[in-house]
């Protein structure tokens, strides 16, 4: 996966307009970013690509299901549910 330290949700980010790297499951609802890398096993990676999850694409987290349930995300005109373990395999960069 990515080598950057995980983004700390509780920390106040003072530098606006600063690019940050994190994994998709750590984004907040309504936050969006650009996919940098995907480190998924071949079968999952194939499915991700078919559904539009490819490096360089913009991705938005719409909401998260309670009890550590899946994420609802949007990429282009496609909305998906993705489990948090799988979302953790996607590294995004976003404007903090």
């Amino acid at each position, binding site marked *: 996966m990515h080598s950057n330290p995980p983004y700390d949700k509780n920390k106040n980010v003072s530098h606006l307009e600063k690019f940050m790297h994190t994994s998709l499951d750590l984004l907040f609802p309504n936050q969006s970013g650009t996919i940098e890398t995907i480190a998924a096993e071949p079968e999952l990676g194939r*499915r991700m690509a078919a559904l539009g999850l490819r490096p360089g694409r913009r991705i938005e987290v719409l909401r998260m299901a309670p009890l550590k349930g899946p994420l609802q995300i949007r990429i282009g*005109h496609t909305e998906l*549910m993705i489990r948090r373990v799988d979302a953790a395999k996607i590294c995004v960069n976003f404007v903090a």
Partner: protein
Amino acid sequence: MKRIALLGMPNTGKSTFFNRLTGAGARVGNWPGITVDLLAAKILLEGSMVEMVDLPGIYNLHGFSDDEQVVRHFLESQTVNGLVVILNATQLDRQLALLLQLKALKLPMTLVLNMSDEAKQLGVKIDLAELARNLDMPVTLISAKYGQGFESARHTIEQILRHNPTARLADTEGLSQDDRIEVEVELDRIVSGTVSTPITLPPNITRRLDRVLLHPWLGLPLFFITVFLLFQLIYGIGTPLQDGMNWGLEQIKTSLLQPALANAPLPIRSFIQDGLFDGVGTVLSFLPIIVVFFIFMAIIEDSGYLARAAYLMDAVMAKLGLDGRSFVMQLMGFGCNVPALMGTRVMRSRALRLLTMLVIPFSLCSARLQVFLFFTTAIFAPRAAAVVMFSLYLMSFLMAFLTALVWRGKYRSVEPLLLELPPYRFPTFKHLLVQGWQQSQYFLSRASGYIVGGVIVIWALTHYPFDVPPASPATLAGQLADYMAPLFQPLGIDRLLSVALLFGFIAKEIVIGALAVIYSAGQSNLSGIIAGKLDWVQAYSFMLFTLIYTPCLSTVAVLKQESKSWRFTALAVAWPLGMAWLVSFAFYQSTRALGW
């Protein structure tokens, strides 16, 4: 015969297109080595009969999901005159990748872009001529739902047939080569040159509905209310229809069949009336509920809500190796297991489907409810009866979850759980009718033989020899009960009750009637006799066994029909039977040991 295969990604309206093109004449075809049902229909195109085959929706030609393997297997083994590829016009930016993979098969091909209505709403513009030039194949824009652009799509298919009169196999190199990076480069090049998409989305109805229906805390209560209403609607409409069907059958039996057979020799009369006719009746009595069930399930599925159910319930169900759609089907099973089992077809991963199918038969269906209502009112005081009923429902869930926990390792879904949440859509009325029609056809053609055969076997057991009263100790069933006595005695189930269990294997609806025959009592004084013969421990043990063991012959027939595996069917019969025995044994022996 000429053959055209329909291919596309899931959620592109492929089946709607197929149904519109072929009418109601589609049948489930038999293809060697394929465990998924493929619809096929013969239609007249270009002056000759052409077989249209609806292949399952796939994301990737080289993927390893069950559906993707089925498609590859089909293309490897069956010759086609051409492929019709259906993609969602609003999602071309990713879906064209599949078409580019398919091009490597070197088969005649045409691209049909569906959902032109949604594309228009979203402001997606596609340069069709430029796209056709880039892809080197005819491209048509249609709305399968509203029928727009249909004639030109049909015309293109006819052209393909005219130019390719002989069917051929796909280029195997195209099937085996893995995803090339060039595909992605080419995809981006073609899309940027032909598709223009507005950057911001118009605030649409889907987003607003999702805000409520997928709300972190409101979502689940709303889901349960929806499922409850759905259940009430399906069985509120279906059960009276089912009763009507049974009434009609009874009328035919008493006013036509019985007089006609009055002079026939006893064995023949008994066989036709109580074997064959009841067998056919058992099959027919399921039809109304299957039609209603599939009409309502099509509404829930096509509207996009079923995929949301998976999202809402995933956190809980994932621990059991199931998903939210399994849960919906399990709940529907509380009405009737048969349509619920057929409904698992919406789950495309075979392992997930099989696990769900193993769980559904534990749902306390309305037929079993009749037996329990009769026993609880006969044996228990009203207040205790309510507690008893509640405990049986609890047991039903407990058994289901236990089964999922035990078998989730064996039926582990390898398919990645990335589900599309399609926009909310209104299904068309015609599509709902087609669904109800197709599913009942399918049930009739695949399951009816097993059901009628099974009813006849049970008839023979309980009626032979013909010179003794049916179901009496001298019949085969009575002798069987003697053999089985050592097995059932430790459960507090006597020989007479075990014969009733044999009847219950046909359908739980006839258990009470069978008991009346066995105790040679009328339905009205049966409860008095039962109350006199059984104490509450025996009665409860009998109910536990009835709840858990094989629900009915029709369920078994559908388990076989859906799994296409005798091994799985055997497991799905043996496992609940074993559980039923263990639970009844544990209950009966421990309560007796406690001195009741």
